[in-house]
């Protein structure tokens, strides 16, 4: 009996409202609202479509920036050569000629006589193709030296002769070769001796050389009247300026004339570059970080704030004192707002006293930090940046002053609201480097909205502390 009556009740409602005979009338205003939703979503879809592209471009830009700054500003081959040359004269300064003797030895194997020279694979004519400049310079240096010795700086002859007399390695065979080969330019043995002295130094200079520079070659060739000499001089690297000094030291008291002339000829072309190790301070450090944080979320200076959480990953590039970082975080942001801060077109019969909100979102930050302190593996930075909120879900719960008030209890909005670069991030970070690869950081932060957040258009603020575990992808290693 009771069941039948219940079924009758159900039937009454099913027949009455289940299939209404007179359907509700169409309202144009409802379609206008629908159209607004569709238009809004169209724009939003556009932004969402571009978001991965913008993100990729930003990441590539960061990478490019990092790589560009990371790239050492030196010519690698030259720096290696430079190191060897600089070291030798200094080491052999006391013997005054050890280095030069070595250079002379290296050259004597290459040039035995004028006939061989013609067949020599390191003929200057082939120097354009053959970038192995060390043999070339050895050959070139000998003749260049001789040429210079015969035409300039006669005052050095004596000194050079003295220098040779002190050498531990006898330049005897070279002398003969020089006399035989450079007979055109050297009129006597003294000159040859001088040439030998100069030769050794110049060999060292030229051993420092970079590949042949065609314009230089022409100019010097004209100046010297000899193509080969020109080539030898042209092979001098602008970076040899310091070498001149080194060699001067190696020779003890004398200033090598040919070497100084060489530099003088090339002087207008000289570009002094800093050679050697890249400055570690300019080095870019790439790092990825795992981040977790707890924060207070609220509106109007964190009124009615509640504790939320974030976790995610970041990628950062540190150059000098600057750190650029981006990434993504999943954020849970609960907060409570008064009805005055709640914006809606819906008209409540009885206004709620407050609204409890729970937002879940993806936070994509773009931050820049500046290092203000660094010592003993500890670092303090301050930073700022912009965040984008992609709100995945918003749950609103209406709380009424009277619990028996008739009205909606709440509603949910899913995947509808975005704040693209609408949040200002301010933070200070203390980082402790555990070892060369890993570091831990504590980061108090504040997030302030430029634009209103979510369906209720609240000025949602957050303040909290994040803990980051950093992994340096290219940790600093001491050079060998």
């Amino acid at each position, binding site marked *: 009996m009771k069941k039948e009556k219940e079924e009758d009740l159900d039937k009454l409602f099913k027949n009455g*409202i289940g299939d209404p005979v007179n*359907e509700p009338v169409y309202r144009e205003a409802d379609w206008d609202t629908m159209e607004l939703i569709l238009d809004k979503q169209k724009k939003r879809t556009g932004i969402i479509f571009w978001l991965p592209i913008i993100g990729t471009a930003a990441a590539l830009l960061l990478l490019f920036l990092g790589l560009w700054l990371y790239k050492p500003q030196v010519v690698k081959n030259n720096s290696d050569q430079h190191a060897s040359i600089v070291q030798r004269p200094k080491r052999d300064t006391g013997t005054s000629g050890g280095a030069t003797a070595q250079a002379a030895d290296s050259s004597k194997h290459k040039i035995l006589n004028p006939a061989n020279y013609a067949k020599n694979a390191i003929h200057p004519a082939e120097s354009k193709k053959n970038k192995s400049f060390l043999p070339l310079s050895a050959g070139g240096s000998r003749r260049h030296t001789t040429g210079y010795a015969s035409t300039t700086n006669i005052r050095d002859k004596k000194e050079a002769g003295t220098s040779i007399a002190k050498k531990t390695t006898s330049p005897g065979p070279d002398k003969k070769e020089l006399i035989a080969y450079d007979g055109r330019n050297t009129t006597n043995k003294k000159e040859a001796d001088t040439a030998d002295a100069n030769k050794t130094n110049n060999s060292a200079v030229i051993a420092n050389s970079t590949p042949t520079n065609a314009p230089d070659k022409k100019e010097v060739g004209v100046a010297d009247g000899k193509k080969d000499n020109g080539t030898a001089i042209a092979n001098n690297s602008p970076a040899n300026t310091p070498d001149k000094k080194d060699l001067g030291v190696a020779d003890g008291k004398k200033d090598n004339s040919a070497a100084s002339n060489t530099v003088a000829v090339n002087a207008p072309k000289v570009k002094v570059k800093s050679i050697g190790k890249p400055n570690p301070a300019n080095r870019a450090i790439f790092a990825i970080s795992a981040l977790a944080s707890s924060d207070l979320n609220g509106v109007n200076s964190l009124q009615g704030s509640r504790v939320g959480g974030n976790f995610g990953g970041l990628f950062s590039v540190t150059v000098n004192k600057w750190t650029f970082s981006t990434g993504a975080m999943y954020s849970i942001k609960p907060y409570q707002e008064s009805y005055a801060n709640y914006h809606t077109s819906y008209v409540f019969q009885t206004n709620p006293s407050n609204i409890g909100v729970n937002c879940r979102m993806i936070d994509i930050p773009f931050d820049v930090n500046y290092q203000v302190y660094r010592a003993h593996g500890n670092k303090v930075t301050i930073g700022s940046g912009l965040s984008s909120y992609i709100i995945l879900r918003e749950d609103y719960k209406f709380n009424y002053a009277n619990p028996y008030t008739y009205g909606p*209890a709440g*509603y949910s909005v899913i995947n509808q609201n975005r704040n693209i670069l609408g949040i200002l991030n301010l933070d200070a970070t203390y980082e402790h480097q555990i070892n060369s690869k890993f570091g831990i950081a504590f980061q108090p932060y504040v997030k302030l909205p430029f634009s209103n957040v979510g369906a209720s258009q609240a000025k949602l603020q957050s303040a909290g502390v994040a803990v980051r575990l950093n992994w340096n992808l290219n940790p600093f290693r001491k050079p060998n």
Partner: protein
Amino acid sequence: MGDEELHQLIGGCLKQDRASQKMLYKVFYGFSMGICLRYANNRDEAAEVLNQGFYKVFTRIETYDRTRPFKAWLGKIMMNVSIDYYRANLKMAYTDDLDKAEHLSDGELPDRKLNYDDLLKMVQRLPPAYRTVFNLFAIEGYTHEEIGELLHISPGTSKSNLHKARFKLKQMIAEADSPDSNGNYNNGIDYSPIVAIKKTNMHGVYFDKNIRK
């Protein structure tokens, strides 16, 4: 509207053609609003839910299987959107007036016929948790197990909510039946702000009378 016209409209919606979207919206507005009104508190909320439902229709129309009735697909979307809209309220417990349930449960149904507006207003006055279960059970024909799955509640809660919904409805019917009642349930002749009843056919608007169910 015949099947061919409907498929043309759906084809237009697939291309995001606004005119086709508007036509589809107009044609199925009454049908969809009828569903949303049953689950909503009032007409404005129903319109909001309806638009959310149509938004899903327009953005996911490619998932519609053309071999199946469109109305059934649309109705299901409207029902699901309505449930989602009030989902936060569906697990709320109401304990008021339950002690009065017993003596009213065997009450007689009114002799006179309550019209659509009267019945709809009664259903809309139910708390969302009761209303949703009542709609799903009494009107849509779902079982308590199915309702439990849909609403993420236990079948027992569903039964309980149905029982309470029936009790409240009987209470409302009794109030409406009483001679001194000054409520809206007066043979449906009072003004109702909830829905407007269509009196004439709208020019240029298709009606879905020919659409298969």
